[in-house]
């Protein structure tokens, strides 16, 4: 196990470097970061040159990248051009997005897995068909459309919720945005669980469990579910990174001041430090989530041994 973790960590290094370098290059293409500093006017050449030297923008890109990564590993994500520390922005933005992601994941686990089990056990019945159709529709409608429609219905027409979320973004206000963020993945989790349950239901160990007279709920929860959840866990784990990145759209619809909001502002204002910093953290989250998923395999499936 220990050796496996080390090997996986070593494998993560090139991916991390590659992904951050790619983002770094993209942001560099994004445009002249100095241009945003002089407001609407163009900077005069002397000021521009001075600012360039001050921020180290006159050096080649690879040097800038190395310096930046060196700083990141000492916890210094740089300063946004308005003088605010990027880490400060992160400290306000990440908790909000984490809450949002947490709600989304909870929806996926509770609603998605339950629906998957129910339909998987009742294949071909009306419930199954209905839920399947519903998942297909949810997958097809882009998140921003789902979000806008639910906001229109629940927030504006019926007044059940506040259409936009306050700056503090407490859990209660994030329930609908969380559902919207989860929607597509929720549908995938349902379908994945359903297929998996339906497949395993015919397996020998389930027949044995039934034959030795175990009550139905025990067969389902202990024998069937545990074995069927392995692909679902992979999906949900990989989804953590996806959700945090995909939160841009949801956060924009409900005006949530989280990671997506800061990133969007950073891109609009050509604030390279903010963008690169946030994306670097997101990439790290994604990679760690995938590692955790692989390790969880061993817990769920004792047949898997890491060497």
């Amino acid at each position, binding site marked *: 196990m220990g050796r496996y973790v080390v090997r996986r960590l070593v494998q993560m290094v090139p991916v991390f470097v*590659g992904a951050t370098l790619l983002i770094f290059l993209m942001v560099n293409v994004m445009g002249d970061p100095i241009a945003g500093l002089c407001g609407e006017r163009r900077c005069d050449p002397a000021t521009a040159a001075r600012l360039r030297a001050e921020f180290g923008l006159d050096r080649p890109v690879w040097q800038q990248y190395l310096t930046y990564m060196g700083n990141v590993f000492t916890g210094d994500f740089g300063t946004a051009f308005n003088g605010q520390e990027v880490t400060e922005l992160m400290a306000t933005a990440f908790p909000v997005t984490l809450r949002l992601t947490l709600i989304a994941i909870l929806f996926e686990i509770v609603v998605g897995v339950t629906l998957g089990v129910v339909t998987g056990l009742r294949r071909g019945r009306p419930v199954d068909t209905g839920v399947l159709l519903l998942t297909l529709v949810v997958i*097809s409608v882009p998140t*921003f459309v789902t979000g806008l429609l639910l906001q229109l219905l629940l927030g504006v027409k019926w007044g059940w919720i506040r259409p936009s979320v306050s700056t503090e973004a407490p859990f209660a206000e994030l329930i609908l945005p969380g559902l919207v963020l989860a929607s597509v993945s929720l549908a995938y989790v349902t379908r994945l669980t359903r297929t998996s349950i339906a497949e395993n239901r015919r397996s020998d160990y389930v027949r044995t469990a039934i034959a030795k007279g175990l009550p139905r709920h025990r067969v389902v929860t202990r024998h069937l579910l545990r074995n069927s959840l392995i692909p679902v866990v992979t999906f949900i784990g990989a989804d953590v990174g996806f959700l945090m*990145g995909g939160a841009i*759209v949801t956060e*924009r619809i409900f005006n949530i001041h989280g990671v997506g909001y800061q990133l969007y502002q950073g*891109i609009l204002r050509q604030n390279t430090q903010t963008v690169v910093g946030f994306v670097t953290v997101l*990439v790290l989250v*994604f990679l760690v989530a995938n590692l955790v*998923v692989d390790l969880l395999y061993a817990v769920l499936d004792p047949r898997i041994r890491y060497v």
Partner: protein
Amino acid sequence: MSEQHYESERVVAVTGVGGTVDLGADGTERPGKAPGGPGGPGGPGPRDRPRSLWSDAWRDLRRNPVFIVSGLVICFLVLISLWPSAIASGSPLACDLAKAQEGPRPGHPFGFDGQGCDVYTRTVHGARTSVTVGVLATLGVAVLGSVLGALAGFLGGVWDAVLSRITDVFFAIPVVLGGLVLLSVITSNTVWPVIGFIVLLGWPQISRIARGSVITVQQNDYVQAARALGASRTRLLLRHIAPNAVAPVIVVATIALGTYIALEATLSYLGVGLKPPSVSWGIDISAASPYVRNAPHALLWPSGALAVTVLAFIMLGDAVRDALDPKLR
């Protein structure tokens, strides 16, 4: 992340192979496939002549209501994106501010949006953008992805290792985020930057699948036999491996087409995809959202059109998947 492995069963005609049909939207299981354990031997049905995977799949598809419905919707979409004026004669850019946010009236069945443009005309004309982006991006992704993936799987060794790492790198970047960063600088008002971006971030998905598929197919006896007979590597890849490995790529590409259309609309909604005066459902939805209280129709029609389009392509992909490989879910 676990890699998907595709069974190479499709090499054999799969008349009686067990496995239930997963996605008949009507919930009925289609004829021709006995329900049974996935992968369970169903026993080959009587065969008069050898059938290929493709003729089998086509036979299945023709009987599948999901395929027929989604196929008809897609045909309609393609037709109106080729000749939008056939059913909406006005110009999508002809707007009259005096009519802003007005509801439906004769001659303008969908009403007017915030700029006083006819929502019906704009919705019809928006199909072209979506279909163009979807089709071209999918073609690009499929070609680039399957060539690189097949080479990685076929050549193995260093090529494979390097390509797999590159794939991982691209997977670690959130798509919408990458789009925001890359496309925010581009001022061009055509579909090309969006297509280019989707190809750039989309190919690893296909290349992973093509790689896995090639590796599986490579182990088959007929490939070994051809190799033993002295077939060249090019011939091996092009004549024996590629035709048998292409099915999963087609399936994933068809489903991806729908998601690319959704992605274009999402990027346009965020303001970095297409920009006005281009006509795109994403732009219209974005423009309609601030005044949705007064004129919900301006939001609902393009949203509906977008949803139906994406749904049609995803359903088509599902039907094709069921037909090409009943075991592949």
